[in-house]
């Protein structure tokens, strides 16, 4: 499920436009991976983890902040979906007639409670506690120490490192209430073009040593996503995704494909 959260994380972080720095708060807002994505898109991701690396492909359909559908593309995983509606997470599989509700804090994969990481809008949920400047081989960095606005968030602290020149984050490290680092997201590559988004990300579960998932964006298109896909109790639209031709996706006009 680390894959999933990484995917979500990813999916929420699409367009980043470099803007001259003003204040740390402004920098956070501009570089906020979770807030700047397109409202509605389809993406295809490759998720690799383990040793030897097992590769999964998933398709992500997203419509606004509230609705996300993850479709598993591996042949033996056909028909399996994860559906996020607001704060609810559902597992939909052909073997189970009814959707299975998963707690967003359920340790579903890699020991990570995805809810706190998934689609976290840093600028909206965190305050900048401190901002320090650092240097690496490629230039200046701003290290933002973020503190949660609400007590309810699982990760009260985030260390968010932003490259000054690009105003793009290079890593986000989430800490537990105990101060222990739980999850780290490293943004390795960025897709340049009309849509700017991180094309390669590593998500590390720091609570389980060696648990790393690499996410690569294979396809990304900004497009309207029909709301039928997110119908919890009616799987017909989702089923249509698996139909060979004349299937559901073709009825929708793509806006952009990258």
């Amino acid at each position, binding site marked *: *499920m*680390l*894959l999933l959260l990484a995917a979500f994380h990813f999916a929420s972080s699409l367009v980043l436009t470099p803007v001259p720095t003003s204040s740390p708060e402004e920098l956070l807002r501009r570089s906020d991976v979770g807030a700047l994505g397109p409202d509605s898109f389809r993406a295809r991701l490759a*998720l690799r*983890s*383990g040793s030897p690396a*097992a590769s*999964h492909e998933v398709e992500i359909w997203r419509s606004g902040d509230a609705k996300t559908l993850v479709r*598993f593309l*591996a042949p*033996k*995983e056909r028909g*399996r979906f*994860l559906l996020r509606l607001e704060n609810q997470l559902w*597992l939909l*599989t052909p*073997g*189970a*007639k*009814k959707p*299975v*509700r*998963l707690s967003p804090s*359920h340790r*579903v*994969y*890699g020991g990570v409670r995805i809810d706190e990481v998934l689609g976290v809008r840093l600028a909206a949920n965190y305050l900048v506690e401190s901002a320090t400047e650092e240097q690496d081989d490629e230039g200046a960095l701003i290290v933002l120490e973020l503190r949660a606005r609400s007590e309810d968030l699982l990760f009260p602290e985030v260390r968010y490192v932003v490259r000054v020149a690009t105003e793009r984050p290079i890593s986000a490290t989430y800490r537990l209430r105990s101060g222990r680092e739980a999850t780290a997201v490293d943004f390795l590559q960025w897709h340049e073009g009309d849509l700017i988004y991180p094309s390669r990300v590593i998500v590390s579960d720091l609570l389980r040593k060696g648990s790393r998932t690499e996410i690569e964006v294979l396809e990304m298109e900004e497009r309207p996503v029909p709301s039928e896909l997110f119908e919890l109790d009616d799987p017909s639209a989702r089923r249509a995704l698996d139909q060979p031709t004349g299937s559901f996706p073709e009825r929708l006009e793509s806006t952009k494909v990258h």
Partner: protein
Amino acid sequence: MIPASIALRNLFRNRRRSILSLVIVSVGTAGLLLTVGFVRYSFEGLREAIIRGGLGHLEVAPADALEAGGAGADRPGLPPSFRDWNQVRDVIESRPNVLGAGATIQFAGVATTGDSSASFFGVAVEPDRERRIGIDLRLRGGSNLGETPPSEGEETVLLGIGLARALDAGPGDTVTLVAPTPDASLNALDLSVAGVFTTGFQDLDSRILKTHLITAQRLLGTDYVTSLVVGLTDAETADRTVADLRAELAGHSPPLSVLDWETRAPFYGQVRSLYRSIFVFLGIIVALLVALSTSNTIMMSVLERIREFGTLLAIGTSRTQLAGMVILEALWLAILGGLGGSGLGIALAALINVLEIEMPPPPAAVDPMILALAVVPADLLFAVAFMAAILTVAAIPPILRLFRLQIVEALGHV
């Protein structure tokens, strides 16, 4: 002139005292026998419960899986990694003393009915192999899994009685299992509850569920299994078979581990050492009681015969020979008392077994226990030998007295 016969005659010079000693030795022997019988019955019962409860006599699994998961059976966190289990099974099942080798998958996840959820520890088995191996299922409702693998959508499950209670589910209800798959994904499967069972252990009953191998493979999206559970025609051949199979499977890649049931149920070893300490403690108490009381008897019989011993020394008996006589008398006490006690023990054991006395369930167990004893001929030998040892020790103080005896004093002793 047979020393043993003389010793026996001497023993019955003071009939009353000797009979009292014999009673003490007999009761001690019977007590020991009953304890041994109880311990043996408990061991055998526990062993059978463990073996028939699903562990089988042996388990063959990829070595790394066993190492990572420990020797115990409880390693559901690891994905099944046994790829060519079918071929290995053929090798194992070709042995004449193998009843069968059933593939199993151990897995974990969350079971839900929609209204309630509980985490589970799943054991997926092949019911036909389980039957051949002789693995019992203690059903508490509903029926066992069918022997033929279910087709998709017809999957069934047996719930541990505590898990069934937690889910508020019974036979006929549908339960959805959600489990992480070996490829780091998550899957769910609807299963119809066929029955409710108990393992005999409360703790396990609240987590365990049993299903078909194929069901778990569908849920996990794998053809692999966790291990092969092997049933033998005779538990006594387990050690030899472990050694043989280790040799036979030595070249397998990846390496396979072959473990006997005792290694896989460290609990059994713990219980056994606990029982053993209790038994040793009891044995020491019995030994002390018997030794103290019979030592006194032997001492009295020696003191009463001081003049006789003086005479025997005077006419050329060595002190070692006198000591031998005393030991012979003590040994007679041990043998007669041991035999009497054996008879008494066997009779009591038979009586107890017939009465089927019900005992409260042992800690963490579910069912009450029937008090029963298993006494075997070797125990009788052991009991007599043990008594012989105790009485030889008990004869030491009187013998020391004999070694200090002054002949002249002894002759003048009245």
